[in-house]
Each structure stands twice: as structure tokens, then as C-alpha cells.
């Protein structure tokens, strides 16, 4: 278990937690209701986080 892998917990905490603390319509961001924007943003960030893990993971070298 590498400390690097802990980065992958961020999307879980943010999206599941967002169901409670980001569950609202206002403010609209990029034309999307806030809850929808929050999940879409974290899905984009998930790909970025997984990209960082892939790039730094010695298993892939």
C-alpha cells in the first residue's frame, strides 16, 4: 500500500459527502445546478487524480 494511493479516496469522500453538503440547486455554475456541477467537477478531478497516480506509480514504469 503506497501513500500515493490515498489520493484515490478524495473522489469518494467528495462525491458521497457532497450528497449531504452540496445537495442544493443554487448557485448555478456553468449553467448547471450546484449538485450536478459538484458531481461533474469531481468526475473530471477523478480522472486527473488517477492520471497522477498512474504517472507516479512505479508499477507502470
Amino acid at each position: 500500500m503506497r501513500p500515493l494511493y490515498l489520493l484515490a479516496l478524495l473522489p469518494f469522500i467528495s462525491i458521497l459527502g457532497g450528497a449531504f453538503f452540496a445537495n442544493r440547486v443554487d448557485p448555478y455554475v456553468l449553467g448547471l445546478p450546484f449538485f450536478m456541477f459538484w458531481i461533474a467537477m469531481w468526475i473530471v478531478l477523478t480522472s486527473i487524480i488517477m492520471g497522477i497516480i498512474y504517472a507516479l506509480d512505479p508499477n507502470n514504469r
Partner: protein
Amino acid sequence: MNSALLIIGLFFLAALVLGISARAGKDMDLEEWTVGGRSLGSIFVFLLLAGEIYTTFTFLGGSSWAYSKGAPAMFILAYGCFSYVISYWLLPPIWRYGKKHGLVSQSDFFSTKYNSPALGVLVAVVGLVAMMPYLVLQFKGLKLIVETASYGAISGTAAVWIGAVVVTLYVVASGLRGSAWTAALKDVMILGVVLFLGIYLPIHYYGGFDPMFHHVEAVKPGFLALPKDGKNPVWFVSTVCLTMLGFYMWPHFFASVFSGRDARVFRRNAVVLPIYQLMLLFVFFIGFAAIGQIPHLANDDLALLQISIQTFPPWVLGLIGAAGLLAALVPGSMLTMTMATVVARNFYQTFNPSADDRQIASLAKWLVPVVSLIAVYFTLAGGRGIVALLLLAYSFVTQLFPSLLLSVLPRNFGTKYGAAAGIIVGVATVVYTNVTHTTLTQLLPFLPASLSTVNTGIVALVANIVALVVVSVLTRPLLKESDTQTT
């Protein structure tokens, strides 16, 4: 109307030609037919794994959920994203083990890992019971899409028969490679159609996304956030967690995993797939756009097709219908091939150990039309209960997760008896809670009311884990070293 018919007909033909062409230069032995000779690179594995995002269930069901339920539809995006994150660590050891032992099916994996052909048969039974409703649902979606998009020129029954014949021909000819090649055409079509509809409809009818959502909020206040009751945040979290565990437990996924060239293929895909499935957001936009235009649909599943009929000329409907039929054919072909393989390999060969791989490959190919015919029968004869059955099936395959997870850990304390007990107890609990419509608060009355909306599938999973641990602890001392799992 004729232009729609012509376009749909051309894509049926294109899928067939592409699927059969995939076998060129390949000797279709068992390994080549079932897992593409374990030689597929990142792009083809990506297409097979991503193929699960855009089935008819998501094509019609995603827009339907946005149209009828609003924000709770976002759970589809969340569980897919989490499943892909998990795949970074879950799929490489499964692939490595499959390559080392020459495995071609999910049941192979369990029977070899736990050194128990009987466990392989149990997993095969669970897999077959779960896969048939999934295949029938693809054909039902095909029926609905082609009949509607061709303005009735192709009847639903004819569409199902044509779909079954196309799938049968290219699966028998090319196996997994046929699915992979057709998936390439499918993803191009689906991406084009979904992006076009998801952007054009909100702009055409409302002037943009922001005005569309303001309109939805005005006519249905609170629709764009999770409600306080029913499908509330507690439901959202429990359903996302449960569904992400079941995501990779579908037997046809294992064929895609075993087909990879190396372990890095899966890690690369874990980077790309989350953002790729964000395209589902555009499927939801179609459903939200339909709210203001066709507000009282009798069948929510028709939201995407009805707003398209209202908006576009027949040739555009033809392209939408073509994308929809490909969304049914690709997962349909994977399911058909996997079911035929499981019956041949994990039933026939288990009870006839002298059968060699050549005989198994031949039998599996003969079983493909049989599986297709059974699916056609249930599609044309079955009622609307198939969606309920599919949700039940999803809960079934999720019960395979605990024993699979233990098996890929460096030290697996689970035994074959524990794994079997966990699966049986889990499946029995799923059946009981679904048949009796038992809720969590009925099962555990001491729980606080705030947890009343927890997905009851969690109960089955907990019962499964308890049975797995208890039986493993009790039976481990009884097993000889040779009876425990292989590495």
C-alpha cells in the same frame, strides 16, 4: 420514414460485416474466441469496458430517470466513476491470475482460486440467472428504439429477430473480437448522437442549459437536488456504494478483463474511463429538456425518442435508431458469448472432464443460437417485470464481490465453503427482501429513522460477509493444504 428505415438497415448490415470481419487471420480456438487470445491493447479493452456505459439501459434509462426522477439520476454517474477507480487495483490481479492459469470465464476464476469446481458451478448458476434478464433487457430496448425510430416500418418483433440473428452470426464467427470491433462503431455513433442531442435540445427549446434548468426548477421545485424523503442522500450513498461493488461482478466483464495484453491496460483505462462516462450528463440533459416539451409521457423510457420525433426529420431519427441498436447489439453479443461459454466450460466440462478445449469451443459456438432463441422468447413473451428482474440480478452478482475481494488479497483467509455459504446466504437474502418488500427498518427496527432509506441490498451484503467469515473460520482447520486456494 424511408430514410430512417434505410439508415437503420445499413447499420444492422454494418454491424454484421464488421463483426464477422473481426475474425480475419485468426484461428478461432477457445482462447481466441472467448478472450481474444489475451492480446487486446488499451483501445480495444477500453471499448469493451466502456461498452458497459452505453447500453440500451443507459441510453433510454438515463434520460428516463432524469425526466421522471431528476437529481437521483446522478447516482449512475457516481457509481460508474467509483467503479473505474477501484478497477485500477482490482482488475490487474484478476488479469494476471487469468493469464497464469489460462482462464476464460468468471466461474473458472472462482473454481481455480478456491480449488473447487463445485464453487465454479455455483458462480455459473448465479451468473446465468443474472445475465439472461440483462440480455432480454437489451433486446427489449432494441425493440423499442428500432420500432419507434423507424416510425413502425420495422416492427418491434422483426427488430428483435434481426438483432438476434446479427448477434448470433458475428458471435459464432468472431467471438470477443467481433464485439470489440462493433464496439468501435457503436461508441462513435453513440457519442455523436448523445452529444448532439444533449447540446442541441436545451439550446433549441430553452436557449441554453441555464434557462432549461431554471425552467425545470420552476415547474418542479426541488427536482434538481436530492429530496428529503425517498431517494434522499442516504439512499444515494448506499445505492452508489452497493452498485459500484457489483459493477465488475458481471460475468461478461471477466471476458473483457482476460482479453487484455498486460496489466497496464487496465490502469490506463482507470484514468480515462471516469471522464469518458461524463458523457452520460448529456443523456440526462435530453431527459431534462423533455420535461418542458412532453410533460405527461405514459412511458418515461420514451423521453429521448419522443422529444427526438417531435424535433427532427426522419433521417436524424434513423441515426438515433442506429446508435440505439448498436447500444443493444454490443453488450448483447458479450452476454450471449459469455452465457454460451459458461454452459460449455463450467457445466459440460465440469461433468465431462475428458472434453478438450476444441470440443468446448465447438459446443459453446453451438450454444450461441440457443441462448439467443431463449432471449428472444423472453423478450417477446415477457412482461414489464424485466426491469425489476434486472435490479434483482444486479443484487445477485454483487454477492460475488466479498469472496472475490478476499481471493485477490495477498493472504486469503476465506475457504471454498465460506465463499459458497456467503454467496448462497447473500442471494437468499436478496430474494427474501425483494419478494416480501422488506425495508431496512422492518428488518432492524432499532435503527434511527434517518437510515430508513438505506438500500436493502446492503443487508444481503452484510449477511453474505458474516456467513463467509464464520464458515471460513469454522472450516479452515478441516481443510488440507491442497484444498485451499491456489496462488
